[in-house]
């Protein structure tokens, strides 16, 4: 990553799962204007045509874009939504202070001001961040948006009793009054200590500790303004008041909703949004196979979850060149891996863990997740290629054909004192057929060297809280291996690695994603990196951490995920956004 910040001190507690590599800095960055739409795009339908450029660019307005979701939306409330597609989609009806640039490829990871005129202006050694709001921005009812609305939006998102699904970045960093519980419970408490609104256009954030990457927070949906008078708390998701180009028309939770144009939105105040369609129609809880079929037939424009085609569709799409030409196959910043728990004997022995690393059949792993197109590319270490600091290392080559190296594995077993192998369990999330297939694949390949695995499915909802992620339970029940996965909230080394490898996030009460990596040196490296302000020095540390964890053999990397995205028929301005790991939903239009 070339974008960097040269801001001074960033002393940051290790609690945060966030990125240090913020964009811009010093307020010097020029917001990219709408004219910056890449010219290289073409309408020629070919495989991966929308990966790095705009496919089918057009400025034609009108039409209704149809989206469908195989699952249910977690929430439409900006304070309470934590799905990537939701953060992508929410920009249609909400404007946060800052946003990722709606542009293809690498460019999409740039932050650009949205509701704010510029990116954040730090002061007090990056402990204070100031944003100036654009003039003339209004809510859907015509009320002008003021900095107080932004402040209210952030404050209400702090109430985790009302909004338990959301993130805690602001709770953890803002210099809040002691025991502040959000505007509902702590009514009338003066919060100027944390957020000041000196005038209607200015908002100032005060942090407990300096943090140079605050703009990443400012792009979170929580900074979308919410009018206090219209706030209905947990029920606000039934009708969110729009600040963007579209507003809610009809919203039936569990079924779907409609967006129509918001006539109070002024294109002049918004350089990022094209607002081409006349409206959006979103259906939720649709059969996933049905979504694919409708996408291919043109009845549907976007599979909103953005996780790619269903297995049944793969066969159809990949074998038909005409269909394949309408798909894109990006590698996303997500690692599917298996935790090797050093607390479970005999995996407390490094060589036994190494035996697992060698014996695993990587091709089977890949196939379990959907093969090279919808599954991913075989991972040889933790960091996906898209994350800064990635190095091509392969400490445990899985043989020539990637089906596992039996010889090396047996050597490792002998070194570990278990020459005939051993028995342990592998856990996975029962509702995830791919994880089931992975567990079965590992069972197969490890059996070749005498490591007998017993499959232990657990309910997804309790996987981390009660079972695999609860150290006591995992140890008592000999969950030696646990099928796992991790993707960062945005592409950045710290955000990617910290929740995965920092041993201090492991709680005895359960619930952490890191199940197996317990290495004080890794923790030290993480702290070192979070204090390192020089990107050139910091990025190699990510690589070092990667190498160290691999040497410890606490993680068996499976694949770096890829998804096979289907471009809807007749949709204009389709492009893949690295920041979201799916198509950009802001720019699409209809032919």
């Amino acid at each position, binding site marked *: 990553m070339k974008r960097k910040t040269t801001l001074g001190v960033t002393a940051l507690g290790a609690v945060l799962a966030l990125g240090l590599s913020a964009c811009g800095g010093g307020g010097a960055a020029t917001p990219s204007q709408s004219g910056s739409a890449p010219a290289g795009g073409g309408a020629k339908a070919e495989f991966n045509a929308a990966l790095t450029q705009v496919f089918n660019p057009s400025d034609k307005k009108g039409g209704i874009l149809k989206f469908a979701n195989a699952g249910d939306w977690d929430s439409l409330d900006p304070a309470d939504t934590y799905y990537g597609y939701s953060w992508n989609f929410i920009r249609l009806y909400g404007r946060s202070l800052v946003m990722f640039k709606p542009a293809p490829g690498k460019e999409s990871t740039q932050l650009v001001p949205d509701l704010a005129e510029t990116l954040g202006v730090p002061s007090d050694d990056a402990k204070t961040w100031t944003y100036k709001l654009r003039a003339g921005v209004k809510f859907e009812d015509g009320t002008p948006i003021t900095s107080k609305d932004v402040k209210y939006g952030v404050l209400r998102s702090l109430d985790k009793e009302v909004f338990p699904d959301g993130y805690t970045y602001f709770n953890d960093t803002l210099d809040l009054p002691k025991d502040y519980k959000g505007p509902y419970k702590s009514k009338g408490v003066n919060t100027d200590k944390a957020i000041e609104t000196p005038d209607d256009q200015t908002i100032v954030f005060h942090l407990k500790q300096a943090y140079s990457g605050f703009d990443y927070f400012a792009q979170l949906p929580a900074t979308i303004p919410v009018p206090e008078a219209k706030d209905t708390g947990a029920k606000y998701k039934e009708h969110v008041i729009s600040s963007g180009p579209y507003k809610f028309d009809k919203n039936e939770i569990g079924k779907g909703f409609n967006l129509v144009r918001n006539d109070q939105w002024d294109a002049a105040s918004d350089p990022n949004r094209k607002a081409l369609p006349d409206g959006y129609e979103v259906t939720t809880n649709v059969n996933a196979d049905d979504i694919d079929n409708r996408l291919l037939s043109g009845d549907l424009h976007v599979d909103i979850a953005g996780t790619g085609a269903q*297995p*049944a569709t793969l066969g159809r799409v990949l074998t038909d060149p005409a269909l394949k030409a309408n798909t894109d196959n990006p590698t996303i910043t997500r690692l599917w891996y298996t935790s090797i728990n050093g607390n479970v004997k005999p995996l407390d022995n490094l060589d036994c863990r190494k035996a697992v690393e060698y014996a695993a059949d990587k091709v089977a792993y890949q*196939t379990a997740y959907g093969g090279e197109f919808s599954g991913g590319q075989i991972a040889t270490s933790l960091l996906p290629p898209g994350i800064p600091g990635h190095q091509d290392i392969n400490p445990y080559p899985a043989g020539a054909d990637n089906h596992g190296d039996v010889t090396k594995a047996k050597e490792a077993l002998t070194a570990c004192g278990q020459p005939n192998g051993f028995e342990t369990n592998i856990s996975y999330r029962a509702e995830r057929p791919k994880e*089931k297939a992975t567990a079965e*694949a590992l069972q*197969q390949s490890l059996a070749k060297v005498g490591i007998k695995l017993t*499959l232990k499915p657990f309910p997804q909802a309790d996987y981390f809280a009660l079972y695999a992620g609860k150290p006591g339970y995992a140890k008592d029940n000999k969950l030696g291996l646990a099928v796992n996965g991790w993707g960062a909230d945005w592409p950045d080394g710290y955000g990617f690695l910290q929740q995965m490898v920092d041993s201090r996030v492991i709680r005895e009460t359960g619930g952490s994603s890191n199940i197996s990596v317990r290495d004080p040196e890794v923790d030290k490296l993480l702290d070192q990196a979070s204090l390192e302000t020089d990107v050139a020095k910091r990025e190699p540390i990510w690589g070092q951490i990667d190498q160290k964890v691999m040497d410890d053999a606490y993680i068996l990397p499976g694949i770096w995920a890829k998804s096979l995205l289907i471009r809807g028929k007749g949709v204009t301005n389709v492009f893949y956004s690295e920041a979201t790991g799916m198509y950009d939903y802001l720019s699409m239009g209809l032919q």
Partner: protein
Amino acid sequence: MTAPLDVSGTELEAAPEAVLAGAQGKAIQGRSLGQIAWMRLKRDKVALTGAGVVIFLILVAVFAPLIVGWLGHPPNDFNQDLISSETLAPKDGTGIGWDHLFGVEPVNGRDLFSRIVYGARISLLIAFLATLLSVAIGTILGVMAGYLGGWVDSVISKAMDVFLAFPLLVFAIALAGIVPDSAFGLSGDALRVSLLVFIIGFFNWPYIGRIMRGQTLSLREREFIDAARSLGARGPYIIFREMLPNLMAPILIYATLLIPTNIVFEAALSFLGVGVRPPTATWGGMLSDAVRFYTIPHFMFFPGMAIFITVLAFNLLGDGLRDALDPRAR
């Protein structure tokens, strides 16, 4: 009623076969219900076919390792060389051939034939044991309710009402879903099988119970029970020596008809992902995997047909048994 013709105790109206077949020799033998039933069953080609298939399936289940060793591959072994890494489907579409009689699964290329054969084990084992449990509980409680009457009857009958009001499938899913992976000193397949047997068997007993209660009620009023009672027979004697033999026919019929229901039940739970844990092959589980690959029809065809044929065979046999043992039900 006067019976002018004392014809050595044979009830003419009740057993027409005796009328048809009797009087050939001078000594007229009373035929036992079993003999008559067997005679009728022998003539019922459809039921015999069902019985044949059932026996075949039981043999398949019992000798699964032998059959698979001879005709297939270990059921959990991967054959990913047969799978296209792009589409995850078998490279030639199905993988069907001499090596893999029913083809292979997409993704990991496991031999479908072997998995179907091993699936029969789980399916039949659970269905049989669950039926046994239902019949045991149902018969004991049903006979108690019918024979003892009074408050015992009303308590048991109310209990049956409550059980029948439970949303059975929802409840079974919920229960199968929240039971942890090792409990009651069991784990793995043993635990899951026991759990499923318990859930399926325990929630089905009221059906048997109601039938048994009704049968007992009508038996209680019959003369021979009165006769036994007047001779001083006590409750247990009457129940075990007089009632149970007469209940054997309905027990057999409804047990046979309950088995296919339980097979479907087990398959449904496996289909919904709360059955026996993978990679152990179950027909319902395979069907549920096949949904994701509905463009590969052979994958859903074989498990679906396995369930269908098994259930059909048991239904045919059950219908035949009912016709043979209970002529009034024809």
